[in-house]
């Protein structure tokens, strides 16, 4: 509203008009702000009224409840009046929550507090888990506290169920482990153990709580365990070691020693402080025993090896002087160093014969040693078995003649070449032939060589005394000297046939004997024609 020229100079009027206009603008803005504020308050009020969280408004200075929203009233089942005008710590059901002065003072200081570990109790006595978030606001010149209270019962329940499931799964895992497991506190007192360990202690798992090793083991052992555990909890370092253990058979019978591998690990709380010890162990007695057994076997093998080397050395040492004696006798007997009369010749001949025998015995012992220790080596070459048989016949002819026996040979023509150790096969045939000759008083010894399919069959047949049937299986066993077999009569080592058998087997062949008392014996030998790579 503008009045015209009411006595004021036009400049003043203009200025006033401008001022009025300005004031009008301010008023409009103020009204707008007031309106906005009103709208905001309305919006807040609406939120407050319809919120799905409980809301409490307190006077920040006094802790007096100034407002409470309908949701909280419904949630707790108390009336509006039971809240209003009361100090928060005066309200029973809130006392435990934020209702203590200290918490309130903390809130005043820090302007924000949050809990969820303090359940509330409704008017009907039901406990509900809540999340409690409180903020301090400045409203006009006054500080207020807004507490938001959210029902988290469902979430808590789910969390708890989940945790229980996890724990029960973990428990199942622990129980199903074959190891023995226990948990102890800082003072080595049992907190828990698995069934496997409990059964070791002859108790139920739940009975372990509060007990210590002194309740189960001899004092000395319990003290040792305590020491070990003290060390682990002291250093904080997990230990894994093998140690002796005492299994309780029953309390009257006492303990049975065992070996275990035990892991002791410190258990820490969330702050990292050691609060106890976790133990896990398993029985390694069997494994230990196997190790011991293995060591024993190895020691035996080593001792046996030493024995073998000793025997081999002795045999070589024996053979050296033997060679000199033999040579000296031969030179004298040959008349190389002057003439020898028949009586001297006879006596020296006796010496020579026995030297030869001693040489054979030593060779047998050496061979037997080699067989026993798997040290016999074979020089495999392509050879003619017929030729080998003839060589044996020739070398045995003198002996046969001396004994007045007829040494015959039945050799099949056109035998194939075969792969074998020539010297060793000669050794076998010589052994069989000399046995036959020495065992036959009159008649003949016949060597036969025949091809049969893919083998060559050799046999040495004599017309001697024969061998009783029950003695035949003993022929090829060491140190079994059978009546009628020359080893007995002639004082052999009883090893000749054993060595022969080993040589034949190594060539993938077979050797056996047939005999009839009074008629004679036949020793059979079969060698495969097909070349075999590598000998057993």
């Amino acid at each position, binding site marked *: 509203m503008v009045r015209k020229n009411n006595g004021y100079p036009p400049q003043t009027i203009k200025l006033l008009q401008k001022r009025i206009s300005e004031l009008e603008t301010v008023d409009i803005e103020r009204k707008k702000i007031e309106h906005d504020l009103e709208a905001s308050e309305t919006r807040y009020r609406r939120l407050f009224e319809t919120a799905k969280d409980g809301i409490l408004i307190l006077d920040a200075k006094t802790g007096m409840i100034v407002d409470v929203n309908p949701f909280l009233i419904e949630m707790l089942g108390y009336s509006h009046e039971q809240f209003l005008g009361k100090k928060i710590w005066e309200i029973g059901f809130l006392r435990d929550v934020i209702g203590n002065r200290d918490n309130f003072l903390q809130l005043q200081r820090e302007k924000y507090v949050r809990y969820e570990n303090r359940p509330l109790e409704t008017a009907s006595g039901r406990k509900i888990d809540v999340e409690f978030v409180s903020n301090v606001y400045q409203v006009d010149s006054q500080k207020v506290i807004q507490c938001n209270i959210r029902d988290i019962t469902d979430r808590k329940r789910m969390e708890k169920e989940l945790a229980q499931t996890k724990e029960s799964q973990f428990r199942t895992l622990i129980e199903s482990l074959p190891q023995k497991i226990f948990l102890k506190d800082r003072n080595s007192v049992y907190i828990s153990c698995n069934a496997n360990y409990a059964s070791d202690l002859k108790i139920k798992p739940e009975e372990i709580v509060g007990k210590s090793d002194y309740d189960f083991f001899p004092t000395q052992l319990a003290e040792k365990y305590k020491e070990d555990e003290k060390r682990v909890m002291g250093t904080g370092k997990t230990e894994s070691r093998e140690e002796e253990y005492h299994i309780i058979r029953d309390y009257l019978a006492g303990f049975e020693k065992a070996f275990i591998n035990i892991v002791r690990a410190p258990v820490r709380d969330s702050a990292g402080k050691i609060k106890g010890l976790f133990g896990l162990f398993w029985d390694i007695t069997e494994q230990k025993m196997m190790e011991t057994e293995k060591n024993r076997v190895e020691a035996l093998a080593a001792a046996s090896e030493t024995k073998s080397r000793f025997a081999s050395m002795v045999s*070589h*040492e024996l*053979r*050296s*002087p*033997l*060679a*000199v004696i*033999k*040579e*000296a006798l*031969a*030179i004298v007997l*040959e008349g*190389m*160093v002057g003439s020898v009369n028949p009586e001297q010749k006879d006596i020296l001949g006796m010496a020579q014969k026995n030297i030869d025998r001693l040489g054979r015995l030593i060779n047998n012992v050496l061979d037997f040693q080699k067989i026993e220790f798997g040290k016999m080596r074979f020089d495999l070459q392509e050879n003619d078995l017929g030729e080998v048989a003839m060589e044996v016949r020739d070398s045995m002819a003198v002996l046969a003649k001396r004994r007045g026996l007829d040494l015959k040979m039945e050799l099949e023509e056109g035998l194939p070449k075969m792969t074998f150790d020539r010297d060793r096969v000669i050794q076998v045939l010589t052994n069989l032939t000399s046995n036959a000759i020495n065992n036959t008083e009159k008649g003949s010894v016949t060597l036969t060589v025949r091809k049969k399919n893919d083998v060559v069959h050799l046999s040495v047949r004599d017309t001697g005394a024969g061998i009783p049937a029950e003695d035949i299986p003993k022929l090829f066993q060491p140190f079994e000297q059978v009546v009628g077999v020359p080893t007995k009569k002639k004082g052999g080592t009883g090893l000749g046939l054993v060595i022969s058998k080993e040589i034949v087997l190594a060539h993938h062949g077979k050797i056996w004997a047939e005999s009839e008392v009074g008629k004679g014996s036949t020793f059979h030998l079969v060698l495969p024609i097909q070349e075999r790579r590598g000998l057993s």
Partner: protein
Amino acid sequence: MTQKILMVDDEADLLKISLLRFKIAGYEAFGAADGREGLDLARQKTPDLIVLDVFLPGMNGDEVARILKKDEKLKRIPIILISADVETLEKRARESGADDYLAKAFEAGELVGMIKSTLAKRGQKAALS
């Protein structure tokens, strides 16, 4: 010309009887009881063949063989290494450059046979070259 055999062995009886055997077989034979003496004799007499025992006092036979095989004048002399230690004999012979080897205790005939065949081979070689 009679061929000369040198045998080196510290077993006096074996050495003596072997030398006798060599002589009966028609060789001129002389012996030494250790490696040092053996080397001296080899240089003095330039034998046609040397028989060397492995285990000798002071210096082993395979060591003697190695020295001989490095000597320009003597390296063509065939060497037979002998030993009771059959396990290592072949290896020692191969590594020392010996021409052949024989395990103790051998029959004198065996050694004489080996000497004969070795000398025969050597003779053939010499005749060829």
